[in-house]
Each structure stands twice: as structure tokens, then as C-alpha cells.
């Protein structure tokens, strides 16, 4: 019992109580100002030391990081180039898909014909002739004379065929003549191409009242084209007193310079009326 209250034990007990008291005061937050006051210089010193260390470390490791950054930069530039080329590829595919969707919509909207889609792979060498070359030929069932259209309207007709390609004469060619019908005026007429690709309207009766913007559709006469295919609009008209017919200029709805895909009407049978022509 005497040992229990020995001076050593009492001292340990006092220390324990002091430590417990300090802990209780610290936990309850009473010592926070004292801690702040005492730790603040330490933190400042630690911060200063750390900054100096980082500065010295950066100074020695800087060249190595430059090389790494350069390598990363090159790698990223390569990735950017690759992604950009991928974007261009995808945009190209998207544009092609949009054209094909439009052609598909046209084919669905006009179910009376059978269509074969073809890609335009070239143009006629001579600027005096308006022809395009497509990637479908006799192997795909393409025959001479088949009409060619897009979702916008009439393009022309197949002029020459080989196994895997065909040449299409555009309606803007100088040797092309298409029989048309003026939708509003309800008269038959002809459109003729030219060496520069402009289309003129001919054989319009003098008494026909043709307005600018009147729509032209194929009439089906002559048996070269099916009827009611959109051709274009009247751009201007000229009427001379001494002539039998009115003439005019036609704006085709199809942009022949930017044709990339077309539809060939495969179930249309061309009627050859040449033996009947005297």
C-alpha cells in the first residue's frame, strides 16, 4: 500500500492527468489558438523549404522534362493529324451517305421504276461534250439508252456501256434533245443542250403562255425517257413575231458539275422510232 503512493507513482499519475487534461482540452478545441500560434512559424518554414527544394529540383530536371514534353508534343501532333484525317474521312462518308439516302428517298417516292445506284467516276475529256462516266456497266444490267436521274431530276441517258462502266450523255450535251411538257402552260416542247452546257427550250407554240419559273417535266414522247420526270425551270423566254415557235433558256435543277451519284432506271424500255422517221 505504501508502494502504491510512492513518489514515482504519484509523479506518473500527475503526468498522466496533465497529458489527459491537455488531450481533453485539445479535443474540445480550447488549445487551437495556441496550436495555431505555435505551428504557424513551423508551417511557414516548411513551406519555404519545400518551395526552395522544388525550385532546385526543377532547375536540375528541366532539360529532361523539355525532351519529354517535345516527345509528347510530337506524339500529340501525330494524334491530332490522325484524328483530323479521320474527321475528313468521316465527313466524306457522311456526305456520300447523305447523297445515297436522298437517292433512296427518291426511289421510294417513285416506286413505278426500278433503280440502280451508280457513282460518277469521271467526266468526258473534251469540253465540247457533256458526258459523265459511271461505275456500273453491262455486268450490272445497264443497257444503252437507259434514263439516268438523281433525286432532283433528269440527268441524261446511257450512251455507251462496257462491262463495269458506262458513259452517260447529259441533257446539257449539244447532241441531246429531250421532249418535255410545260406543267403550267400544258404544252409540249423540246429542250436542247449546247457545247457550253446551257440548256435551251425550243418548239414552244407562239400562243402558249409561258411564265418564268414554269416547271418542265419529261413528256415521254419519242420513247427515250419515261414521262413526268422533273427536268428544270424556265429561266427566260424569247418570242419573235416572224418565227413559228418561242424559244427560251432552261435552268436545270441538277448541278451537273457536282454530280457524285446517280440512279439508272433499269426497267424502262427505250422505243426505237428511227425506222419510222422518213
Amino acid at each position, binding site marked *: 500500500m505504501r508502494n502504491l503512493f510512492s513518489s514515482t507513482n504519484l509523479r506518473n499519475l500527475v503526468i498522466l492527468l496533465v497529458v489527459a487534461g491537455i488531450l481533453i482540452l485539445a479535443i474540445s478545441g480550447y488549445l487551437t489558438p495556441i496550436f495555431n500560434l505555435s505551428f504557424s512559424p513551423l508551417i511557414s518554414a516548411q513551406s519555404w523549404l519545400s518551395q526552395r527544394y522544388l525550385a532546385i529540383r526543377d532547375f536540375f530536371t528541366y532539360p529532361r522534362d523539355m525532351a519529354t514534353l517535345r516527345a509528347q508534343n510530337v506524339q500529340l501532333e501525330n494524334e491530332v493529324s490522325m484524328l483530323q484525317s479521320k474527321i475528313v474521312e468521316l465527313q466524306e462518308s457522311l456526305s456520300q451517305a447523305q447523297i445515297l439516302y436522298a437517292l433512296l428517298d427518291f426511289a421510294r417516292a417513285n416506286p413505278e421504276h426500278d433503280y440502280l445506284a451508280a457513282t460518277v*467516276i*469521271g*467526266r*468526258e*475529256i*473534251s*469540253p*465540247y*461534250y457533256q*458526258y459523265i*462516266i459511271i461505275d456500273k456497266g453491262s455486268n450490272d444490267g445497264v443497257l444503252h439508252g437507259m434514263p439516268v436521274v438523281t433525286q432532283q431530276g433528269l440527268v441524261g441517258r446511257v*450512251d*455507251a456501256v462496257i462491262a463495269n462502266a458506262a*458513259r452517260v*450523255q447529259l441533257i446539257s*450535251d*449539244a*447532241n441531246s434533245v429531250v421532249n418535255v411538257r410545260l406543267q403550267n402552260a400544258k404544252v409540249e416542247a423540246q429542250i436542247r443542250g*449546247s*457545247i*457550253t*452546257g446551257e440548256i435551251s427550250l425550243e418548239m414552244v407554240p407562239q400562243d402558249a403562255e409561258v411564265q418564268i419559273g414554269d416547271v418542265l417535266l419529261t413528256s415521254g414522247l419519242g420513247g427515250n425517257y419515261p414521262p413526268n420526270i422533273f427536268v428544270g425551270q424556265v429561266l427566260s423566254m424569247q418570242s419573235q413575231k416572224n418565227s413559228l415557235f418561242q424559244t427560251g433558256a432552261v435552268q436545270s435543277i441538277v448541278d451537273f*458539275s457536282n454530280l457524285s451519284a446517280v440512279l439508272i432506271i433499269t426497267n424502262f424500255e427505250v422505243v426505237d422510232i428511227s425506222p419510222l422517221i422518213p
Partner: protein
Amino acid sequence: MPFYLLTIISFIVTLMLQIGIVSRAVLLAGSADVMLLFIAAWSLHQDRKNAWILVLAFGFIIGSISAGPFFIPLITYMLVFFAAKLMHHQIWRTPLLSMFLLTFFGTLFQNGLHLLVLWVQGVGFSFTEAFTNILLPSVLLNMLLAIPVHALVQELFPSELPVGAPL
């Protein structure tokens, strides 16, 4: 043998470029004819005895592909070839000048033949319009492309003929 192979490959590549790209790039209504330029430059840089057979074959191929009469490219290319042979000896110091002369007169001749054929066929056209919108732009485009085509052909087919050599 490599010479003929290279010539045929160059011809095919030029033809693809012509049909796929050059013919689509129009100025007013005219377009360049790189086939003619290739024949002119190639004729200036070789001296094989049987080269005219190749030119004849090329002319026939182009004539078959083109919607126009097949004899127009045939005649034009042969004429350009023989004119190049003459020029190589007469204006040997400046092959580029020969190229320009061949291009200018070759284009004029070819366009003139086309117009003549269209006129014979009864196709109505205004000569002024054809001259302004097709012929002149075509000549201009051909003259512009003559320099790069000549340079390229010169690199592909280093001249075999000693300059100023007798015919």
C-alpha cells in the same frame, strides 16, 4: 523495256487524272487536256524509233473513251508527236519553249477539229461563244499546266537525244 512500261504506266495515271480530276476543273466551259500535254512533253524527251506506235495506240484509246469522234485525238496526238520531233532539233536550246508552242498550237488544232466536226454534224453553236467560253480558257489552262507536266515528264524520262543532233 522499262521505258515502255514507264510510258504506259504514266499514260494510265495521266488518263485517270484527266477523267477523274482535270475534266471536272473547268474555267468558264473550257478544261485542260493533260493527255495532250503528256504526249507533247513525252515526245520532246525521247527518241525511240517505234514511239509513234505508242502515240497511235494512246490516240486510239482516248478516241474510244471520248464521246467525240475517235480520229480527233488520234490526229492531234500524231501531229503533236511529229511536231515535237521536228522542234527537238530546231529549237533544242529551249525545250520549254517547244513545249509551249506544242501546247498552244496542239490545243488550237484539237479545239478547231472539234468545232469543225460539230459544225459538220449540224450542231448549232455560236463561234464567238465557243471561242470565248471554251477555246480560250482551254488554251490558258493548258499553257498553265504545261510547265508542271513538262517538268514531271523531264524527270521521269531523262532526254535520250543529244541536243542539236541531226534528224
